[in-house]
C-alpha cells in the first residue's frame, strides 16, 4: 500500500499482514464451516445466519445491551483475535497502537424497529434508554474496541454495500502508515426484516424467485444476506517478530465514486474501472498480475453487467477467473466485502477458487471467465475484491499471497 505520492513517486507504506480471520455467515460460523459452505449447496430465499447464539460470545448483560449487528461483529472479531493470538497467546501490542474499523450499512435496524413498535404501542415513556447506543452505526466498532481495550482509532466507514471493503482498507492504511501496529478491519450487518425486504423489493433490486445467480443470464436481483467478517491486520515485521502465522497481505486498496446515480451503476462503469486500476497500482502491480477476481456480483441485471464491462476494460479478454460468493452468501450489504475478503484469504490458503453458486447459463453480454460448477485450483498470487454501494461508492482491495 502507498501512503501518498510525492515528486519522486509513490511513498510505500509498511507491509500489512493478515494474521487472524473471523466470520459469521449464513453458510457457516467460523472459517472452517464457512469454507465448506462456500463449496456447498445454495439455499433459496433470504440468507439468514442460523445457529448463532450471542451468549457463546458475550455475557448476558452485554448481549442485551447490543444489537444483533454488534453481536455478529464481536463474534467475528473475537474469532479473528483468538486466531491471531493462537501462536503466542497474545498479540503483544500496546493498546494505543491497536484500533478497529468495523463498518456497516445500516446499524442496529432490529433495535430500531422494536423501539418504534414500543413507541407506537406503549408511548414515549417506554422507549429504551439504550436505543441510541444500540442502533447507532458505530455501535459495532465501539463494542469491539471496548471489549479489547484498544485505544487507537475506532471508526466506521458507512458506504452501503462497499462498507466492509472500505472498513478493511481504512484499517489496513492505518497499519501501513505506522499509526497502528495491529487493527481489526471488517464489516457487520443484520438487517433482514420484512420492512427491508419490502423496500429493496420495491426498488426491484431483489431476486424474483429467491435465487442468487451472479452473472447468469437468468439473474433477476439479489438475495438479502447478513453476518460479519473481520481480519486482524498487522505490520508484517510485528507479525514476524512474534511468530504469527501470516495468511496473506493487504497489498492495495482504492476508493472512488461514480458521481452518477444513487442506485444505478454508471453505464460506462467509469467508477468501478478507476477503482480497480487505482487498487492495482496501489499494490505496485499491473492488471496482468491479478489471478482471481472476487466480484461484487450481486446477481442484479445492472450491477453484474456494469461490473463485467469494468472488468473487461481493466483486464481485457480473457479475464482472470471471476467468482461471486454471493451465490452462497446472498448479499450481506455492509458485511459483504468483509466476508468476501475472508473468502479470498481462504482461497489463498486452500489454492482453490470457490465457484459461483447459481451460475449455469452464460449471458452473451457478459464476457467473463466465471468460475462455476466446482472450485477451480489456482496458484495463489494476487486477488482483487470488488464492492460497489448505493450512492455510487466503489471499493477495491488487492489481497496477495505473502512472498
Amino acid at each position, binding site marked *: 500500500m502507498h501512503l501518498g505520492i510525492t515528486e519522486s513517486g509513490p511513498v510505500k507504506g509498511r507491509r500489512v499482514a493478515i494474521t487472524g480471520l473471523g466470520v459469521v455467515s449464513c453458510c457457516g460460523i467460523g472459517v472452517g464451516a464457512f469454507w465448506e459452505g462456500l463449496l456447498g449447496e445454495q439455499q433459496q430465499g433470504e440468507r439468514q445466519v442460523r445457529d448463532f447464539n450471542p451468549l457463546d460470545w458475550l455475557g*448476558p*448483560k452485554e448481549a442485551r445491551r447490543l444489537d444483533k449487528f454488534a453481536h455478529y461483529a464481536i463474534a467475528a472479531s473475537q474469532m479473528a483475535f483468538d486466531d491471531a493470538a493462537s501462536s503466542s497467546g497474545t498479540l503483544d501490542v500496546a493498546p494505543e497502537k491497536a484500533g478497529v474499523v468495523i463498518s456497516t450499512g445500516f446499524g442496529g435496524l432490529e433495535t430500531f424497529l422494536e423501539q418504534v413498535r414500543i413507541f407506537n404501542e406503549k408511548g414515549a*415513556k*417506554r422507549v*429504551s*434508554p*439504550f436505543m441510541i447506543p444500540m442502533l447507532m452505526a458505530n455501535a459495532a466498532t465501539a463494542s469491539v474496541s471496548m471489549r479489547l481495550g484498544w485505544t487507537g482509532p475506532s471508526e466506521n466507514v458507512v458506504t452501503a454495500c462497499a462498507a466492509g471493503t472500505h472498513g478493511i482498507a481504512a484499517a489496513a492504511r492505518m497499519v501501513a502508515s505506522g499509526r497502528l501496529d495491529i487493527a481489526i478491519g471488517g464489516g457487520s450487518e443484520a438487517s433482514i426484516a420484512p420492512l427491508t425486504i419490502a423496500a429493496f423489493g420495491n426498488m426491484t433490486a431483489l431476486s424474483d424467485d429467491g435465487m442468487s445467480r451472479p452473472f447468469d443470464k437468468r439473474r433477476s436481483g439479489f438475495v438479502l444476506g447478513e453476518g460479519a467478517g473481520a481480519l486482524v491486520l498487522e505490520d508484517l515485521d510485528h507479525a514476524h517478530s512474534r511468530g504469527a502465522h501470516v495468511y496473506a497481505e493487504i497489498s492495495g486498496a482504492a476508493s472512488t465514486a461514480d458521481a452518477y446515480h444513487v442506485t444505478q451503476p454508471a453505464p460506462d462503469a467509469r467508477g468501478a474501472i478507476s477503482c480497480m486500476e487505482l487498487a492495482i497500482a496501489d499494490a505496485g502491480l499491473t492488471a496482468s498480475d491479478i489471478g482471481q477476481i472476487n466480484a461484487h456480483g450481486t446477481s442484479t441485471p445492472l450491477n453484474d453487467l456494469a461490473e463485467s464491462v469494468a472488468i473487461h476494460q481493466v483486464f481485457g479478454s480473457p479475464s482472470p477467473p471471476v467468482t461471486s460468493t454471493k451465490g452462497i452468501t446472498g448479499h450481506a450489504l455492509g458485511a459483504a466485502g468483509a466476508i468476501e475478503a475472508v473468502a479470498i484469504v481462504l482461497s489463498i490458503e486452500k489454492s482453490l477458487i470457490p465457484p459461483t453458486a447459481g451460475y449455469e447459463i452464460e449471458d452473451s453480454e457478459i464476457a467473463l471467465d466465471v468460475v462455476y460448477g466446482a472450485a477451480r485450483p489456482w496458484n495463489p498470487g494476487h486477488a482483487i475484491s470488488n464492492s460497489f454501494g448505493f450512492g455510487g461508492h466503489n471499493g477495491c482491495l488487492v489481497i496477495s499471497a505473502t512472498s
Partner: protein
Amino acid sequence: MSDDAIFEKLSQCAVDVLQVPPDKVVKEARFSDDLDADSLDLVELVMALEEAFGISVDESELDGIETVGEAYDLVKSKL
C-alpha cells in the same frame, strides 16, 4: 399483593434488566456496586417496574434510591 409477592416481582424485573443471578437481588444489595448497574440500567429498571406494577415513578423520587430495599419501599408505597 403480599410483601413477598411484591419483592418477587421486583426481583424478577432486576434479573431481567440487569442480567444478574436471582440470589444477588437481596434488599441490602447496592445497584451500582453489587449489581453493576449504571445510570441507564436504572432508567430501564424503573421502566420495567412501572410496567410490572402499573405505577408511575417521577425522576425526582429516585434521588437517594441506592439499594434494592429502598426500591422495594418506593414501589410498595405506591401500591
